[in-house]
């Protein structure tokens, strides 16, 4: 890949990731060097209760320290706001637990650089390689695929994937509104209704390097319920906006 004129912000949400966060940031910086990319790393510390903040402060990256724990949605929203305000062309979400290998970064950035897509999602399931998650979880993901297909007519294979890249237009939409709590599947519906071009590219994911998933077995029923409700109401709200304003506004696109 030639030297890209695009300024990229990699947002890494971090909640109690003291075991993995240093490695994640180091890998991104390595990939940045190798591929000669203009990448800044922004770690969003979501009020970690462990030693994460002290570790982040010593790393070669930008960081914001949320004074209140907001959950993944609020943390990512902070990252997208930051990207929007500082004029980044591309924002990438990458988990702080090491699930998303930095070597895959160029893969999800390329369609954005080439102008092929507004949203690129790194998917585990397009090519069945690497960590595939558990059976129950894949069942849930299949349900979300059906829900997305039903609502926006797009089949997203890995809608819970938190490995995604946004272009400027998407950043401005995420800046204005980003779902709370479990934002990944909901935001796909949001982007779909904004008529953004969503592209999935196959990536290889690893099993988490440290920490525990934010979604435990006990929470998964609540997760399904919350995401379904959130998705449906988001759908209705955006449809209403569309009807009353002609197009979905609320975002100041400058691309």
């Amino acid at each position, binding site marked *: 890949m030639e030297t890209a004129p695009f300024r990229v912000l990699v947002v890494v949400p971090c909640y109690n990731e003291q075991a993995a966060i240093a490695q994640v940031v180091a890998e991104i910086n390595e990939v940045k060097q190798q591929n000669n990319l203009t990448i800044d790393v922004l770690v*969003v510390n979501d009020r970690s209760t462990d030693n994460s903040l002290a570790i982040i402060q010593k790393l070669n990256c930008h960081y*914001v*320290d*949320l004074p*209140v724990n*907001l959950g993944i949605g609020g943390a990512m929203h*902070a990252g997208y706001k930051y990207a929007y305000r500082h004029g980044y062309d591309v924002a990438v979400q990458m988990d702080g637990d090491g699930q998303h290998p930095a070597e895959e970064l160029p893969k999800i950035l390329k369609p954005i650089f080439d102008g092929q897509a507004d949203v690129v999602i790194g998917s585990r399931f397009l090519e069945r390689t690497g960590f595939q998650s558990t059976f129950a979880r894949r069942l849930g993901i299949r349900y979300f695929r059906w829900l997305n297909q039903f609502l926006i007519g797009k089949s997203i294979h890995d809608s819970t994937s938190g490995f995604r890249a946004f272009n400027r237009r998407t950043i401005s939409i995420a800046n204005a509104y980003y779902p709370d709590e479990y934002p990944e599947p909901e935001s796909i519906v949001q982007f779909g209704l904004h008529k953004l071009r969503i592209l999935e590219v196959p990536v290889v994911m690893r099993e988490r390097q440290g920490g525990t998933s934010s979604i435990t077995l006990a929470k998964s029923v609540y997760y399904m319920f919350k995401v379904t409700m959130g998705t449906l109401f988001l759908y209705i709200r955006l449809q209403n906006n569309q009807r009353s304003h002609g197009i979905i506004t609320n975002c100041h696109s400058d691309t």
Partner: protein
Amino acid sequence: MESLPIVIQILSLTGALLFLFFIARLIVNGKLREEYSFIWIVCTIILIVFSIWRKGLEKISLMLGVYYPPSLIFLAAIFVIIIFLVHLSVVNSSMQQSVKELTHEIAFLKKELADLREDQNKPLAGRSPLVTEA
């Protein structure tokens, strides 16, 4: 119906007045915002009215076709409570939204401050910090 109620009448009247006093004190001490005290004051006034005007409840019940007056109280009370709970959920939701936005802004300001400090680097090192960590 005539001998029994005078005791309960006094009881409910003092109860209502005490409650009104309690609400007023909360407002005066700044622990309760006026807009949320409104519903409590209205409820207390209704309570006072009916503890003085005993026949009123019966009359209204019969008018509405309710033959057991106390059940009308329960119906009304539950209805009011549910409405108020929904109202509180709405207030809570908007508060959560505000907290999220404030959190973002504070985090950005903290970062900007840290960056500024780093730019100025050494000269500030000796001074006391502008913002202390919680």
